[in-house]
């Protein structure tokens, strides 16, 4: 299923401060949008809104499939945030098993994720023993284990080493070539063609009430 993302006049506030004012954009299947902008400008908040975690203060974000562009469908999104969603006391392998079963992935997908992200040396370790980059690789496994058309990634590259940055970029490209869409907050440019969406602070507007 190929989904497009339609964002209509979206406004987001954090406390009394406007983060995003009247933002509209469209992401087609097979397209990657790189969100850039200064720290604190609202990249994470926007991604969490696209994931459906936050209700926007105005406008809306919806996913439509090719059949009827007016009818919104439930977002089928993976959200990878700063927190890695791993419980410190559990084995990495047990976390993968849980994530696969919970998200409805396949055993073949899990094997593929382990192979492509080079996870097999980590499986027997407790997740609190892993480095930041290793944890991120473990988190990325769910992108492969359970296929979903929408990937919402928050600075996915930052803790990874050069080798695994290239691997993740490869995964993202193959996702795009299969008709998936990606919205990705980044600071460093991605090594493939993306559309950049630069968020600017709306002049520090403050609203009271």
């Amino acid at each position: 299923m190929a989904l497009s993302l339609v964002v209509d006049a979206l406004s987001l506030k954090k406390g009394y401060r406007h983060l995003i004012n009247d933002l509209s954009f469209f992401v087609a299947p097979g397209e990657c949008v790189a969100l850039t902008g200064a720290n604190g400008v609202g990249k994470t908040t926007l991604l969490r809104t696209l994931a459906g975690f936050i209700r926007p203060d105005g406008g809306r974000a919806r996913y439509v499939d090719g059949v009827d562009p007016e009818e919104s469908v439930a977002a089928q999104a993976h959200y990878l945030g700063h927190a890695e969603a791993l419980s410190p006391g559990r084995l990495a392998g047990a976390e993968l098993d849980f994530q696969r079963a919970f998200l409805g992935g396949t055993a073949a997908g899990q094997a593929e994720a382990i192979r492509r992200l080079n996870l097999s040396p980590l499986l027997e370790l407790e997740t609190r023993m892993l480095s930041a980059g290793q944890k991120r690789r473990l988190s990325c496994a769910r992108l492969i284990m359970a296929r979903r058309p929408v990937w919402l990634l928050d600075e996915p590259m930052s803790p990874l080493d050069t080798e695994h940055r290239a691997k993740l970029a490869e995964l993202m490209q193959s996702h795009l070539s299969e008709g998936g869409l990606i919205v990705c907050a980044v600071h460093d440019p991605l090594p493939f063609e993306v559309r950049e969406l630069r968020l600017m602070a709306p002049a520090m507007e403050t609203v009271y009430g």
Partner: protein
Amino acid sequence: MTPSSSLALLRRDLGLSLARGGGPVLAAGFFLTLMAMVPLSLGPEAQTLSKIAPGLTWLCLALASLLSLERLFERDYEDGVFDLLRTGPLALEWVAFLKCLAQWLGTGLILSLMTPVVMILLGAPVGVAGWALVAALIGSFSFALIGGAGASLTLGSRKGGVLIALLVLPFYVPPVIFGAGLMQAFVTGAPVSQALSLLCAYGLFALALGPIAMGAALRSALN
């Protein structure tokens, strides 16, 4: 897809509560210690103890059920696991219910099994065991759900433990009254059906409203 997701979550949460000690061992130890202090503080006369045993056991059951509430959602909240859970196929209400169920299986169930034993040790008649177990099972299940609602409301506030206790304890009053009342009715030979129905009614109330309350509270805490 949904049953297997639910089962996966239940198994994970149960594993978490059992694996890291804490939960069941702590609650059971607390329960036993509290009960061991009763004869020390009230004197060892069998007459007094057997009279107050059912009521006191219920009070201690309620207090022991409070213990692990703070960790019910807090851990997954801090680790960011809720971001994963919210992109899954299950509604947040159902996720919260499953977490409470896992909590109850890991802690409340064990406390319930201990309840008749402790009650009899304090001098309640042996015949009371059956009803004590049934009442404790229903009571601890309502404790888990109501406690879950309290835990979800305090999510994100540092050191929410005492706050949870303050929020939740008033709602623990009805099951304590009905549960202890059931025991009293049994001991005095009155029909138990009235107290039992009220206890069941409260359990159903917790079952119906608990998940909705938890879902709403989690949604506002997790934005």
